[in-house]
């Protein structure tokens, strides 16, 4: 009773104003956008229900919030979105109930939530009116940023075909020398002369990473060259699926070079999927099997320097390449040649000398110049107060 009196005296109940719910543009059909004006609460509780159900707590927001993007379902396959949803937002103040705490027990957590919602409804003066809206799913994101990106990707693809066609008609594609890539072939030659193996490390990231994929493609060329020289290659892998792909790639390389029998599956090795254990195991290969050339191409993290320094004691030729900006300084310091960023992605095309692949380098050069032009133009426009280029390149969700 005393508590109830306290509520009456202390609570300055005010619901959120101008409450609206809309389906956001370019939506996956699982989101609704809520907005309201802040009457000066200490926070907000968002409540949602579908046509059949009762109100559930969707989220608690800090003071000053005036909008919220609500996800209506997290697993659309098992729990497809309903036709429409109804919302209310409660203003919280000093007298509001405490937010429900998480509980390991699902039933207890649900009970906490239900109690909380009931307490919010006890003070209905703080509740906004009900608003109902339907989520709308879109089949194509037509925001300018998405269209520009689509255009860029399509133009890389288009330019590849255009330049390939040009090359077929006899015009040669010039590619400048990239010393780091030339060094790969020299390194293989040196290993052959010394009668020692080549060590290839395709980074430590999953196959998900495009650098790992690029590294696999390069490995194909490298394995072929190694097989032609009748030398030996050890591939040290951190991720099992990468080993399986690498195995396939090296086998194919030896096959293409006409020496399928020279391929040893035991030389493409899974070491350990733990970063530093992999590093210890690869160190072991360097120190005990003494490769003459170490090639590190792919995505590396802190182990980069441990590998490169161990390789240095061995006096191996070391060629590294990664687009991981944080590790480039260490490779630059400890290796003989370092391929920086984009150069990594150019290696397989450069080594193959296949016009179809080489043309992709020229295609991305064109897009590169376009980007530089956009940066310069965008800076000029931004400086006179026109952010159009910034907006064009900004991709919202």
């Amino acid at each position, binding site marked *: 009773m005393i508590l109830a009196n306290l509520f009456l005296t202390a609570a300055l109940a005010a619901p959120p104003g101008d409450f609206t719910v809309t389906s956001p543009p370019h939506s996956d059909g699982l989101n609704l956008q809520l907005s309201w004006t802040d009457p000066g609460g*200490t926070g907000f509780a968002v409540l949602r229900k579908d046509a059949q159900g009762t109100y559930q707590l969707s989220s608690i927001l*800090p003071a000053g919030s005036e909008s919220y993007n609500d996800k209506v379902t997290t697993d659309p396959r098992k729990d497809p979105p309903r036709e429409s949803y109804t919302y209310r937002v409660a203003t919280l103040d000093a007298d509001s109930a405490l937010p*429900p705490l998480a509980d390991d027990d699902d039933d207890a957590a649900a009970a906490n939530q239900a109690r909380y919602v009931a307490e919010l409804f006890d003070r209905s003066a703080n509740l906004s009116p009900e608003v109902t809206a339907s989520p709308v799913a879109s089949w194509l994101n037509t925001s300018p940023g998405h269209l520009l990106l689509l255009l860029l990707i399509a133009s890389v693809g288009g330019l590849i075909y255009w330049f390939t066609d040009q090359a077929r008609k006899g015009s040669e594609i010039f590619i400048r020398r990239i010393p780091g890539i030339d060094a790969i072939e020299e390194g293989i030659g040196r290993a052959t002369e010394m009668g020692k193996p080549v060590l290839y490390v395709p980074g430590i990231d999953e196959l998900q990473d495009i650098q790992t994929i690029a590294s696999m493609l390069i490995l194909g060329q490298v394995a072929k060259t190694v097989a032609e020289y009748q030398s030996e290659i050890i591939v040290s892998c951190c991720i099992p699926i990468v080993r399986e792909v690498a195995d396939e790639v090296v086998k194919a390389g030896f096959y293409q070079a006409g020496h399928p029998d020279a391929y040893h599956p035991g030389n493409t090795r899974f070491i350990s999927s733990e970063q530093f254990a992999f590093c210890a195991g690869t160190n072991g290969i360097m120190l005990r099997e003494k490769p003459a050339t170490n090639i590190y191409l792919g995505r590396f993290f802190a182990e980069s320097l441990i590998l490169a320094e161990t390789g240095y*004691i061995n006096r191996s030729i070391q060629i590294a390449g990664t687009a991981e900006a944080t590790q480039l300084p260490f490779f630059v310091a400890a290796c003989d040649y370092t391929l920086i960023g984009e150069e990594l992605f150019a290696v397989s095309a450069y080594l193959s000398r296949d016009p179809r692949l080489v043309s992709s380098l020229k295609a991305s050069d064109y897009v590169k110049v376009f980007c530089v032009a956009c940066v310069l133009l965008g800076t000029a426009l931004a400086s006179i107060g026109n952010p159009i280029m910034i907006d064009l390149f900004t991709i919202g969700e």
Partner: protein
Amino acid sequence: MLDLLIKFQDMDRRWVFLGMGFAILLPMLANITFGFEVDERVQALYDEVEALPAGSTVLLSADFDPASRPELDPFFRAHLHHLFRKDVKVVMVTLWEFAPPLILPTTEEIAGKHGKEYGTDWAFLGYKPGKELAIKAIGENIPKTFPKDSRGNVTTALPVMQGMKQAKDFAMLMSVSAGFPGTREYVLQIQGQYNLKMGSSCTAVSAPDYIPFYKAGQLFGLAGGMPGSAQYEKLVFPDGPPTSGPAKGERLLATQAINVLNLGHLFIIALIVLGNIAFFITRRIEDQG
């Protein structure tokens, strides 16, 4: 001479390792100290604690884990000494699951040295899951959020909790924070709302993110990373490791670590500089000869 210079440039890297090993071990074994200056943010933090009247009560949220311990534990220890020395009462909570085994023994030890009683001079209310929601709940009603303390006592029955219902009832809120949830969430969820007096000690990684809070006056002070902890140690123990009094035996690990960092950096810089001098002299001699 030339031979020696060439040899130095190509010296076995194990000499470098040995030197580095010494640079790391020496400040930990012997008393090698480099002076360092106290940052304005740490000074402000210290001054604010120093100005607390005896008998006031602070709320301390210790949110770190073993990985961030080297950076934050030295601050935590020095801060407890500072508070207990000033006869300030401490109520401690944590939002990090793995924090209690780190912070509770430390607090028991330091409170014991200062002769502080559990319940009247300090209390540990325990770990609360729920992240931001827990912070919001702490802002609104502490006895309701922590009905019992870590020892199973009823929170409202603790003498130290008398008159302490919400975060704003405390003289200040100190967040020792290794990341999420931590200082940022305290500031966003409850600092502004209740206009709390709040300070923070954080890791070097998150310091740049929290400096704007300091500049905006939301934090009265900020000790960032190992240097921040070392500076706070210097302010609390200006005469170096205490040899008497309740803090006797305190090792000032951050100050020690700062010396290691200083010496390690100097060692590497010296190597580079010497290597280059040797390189230039040999090149000049070779050019002439």
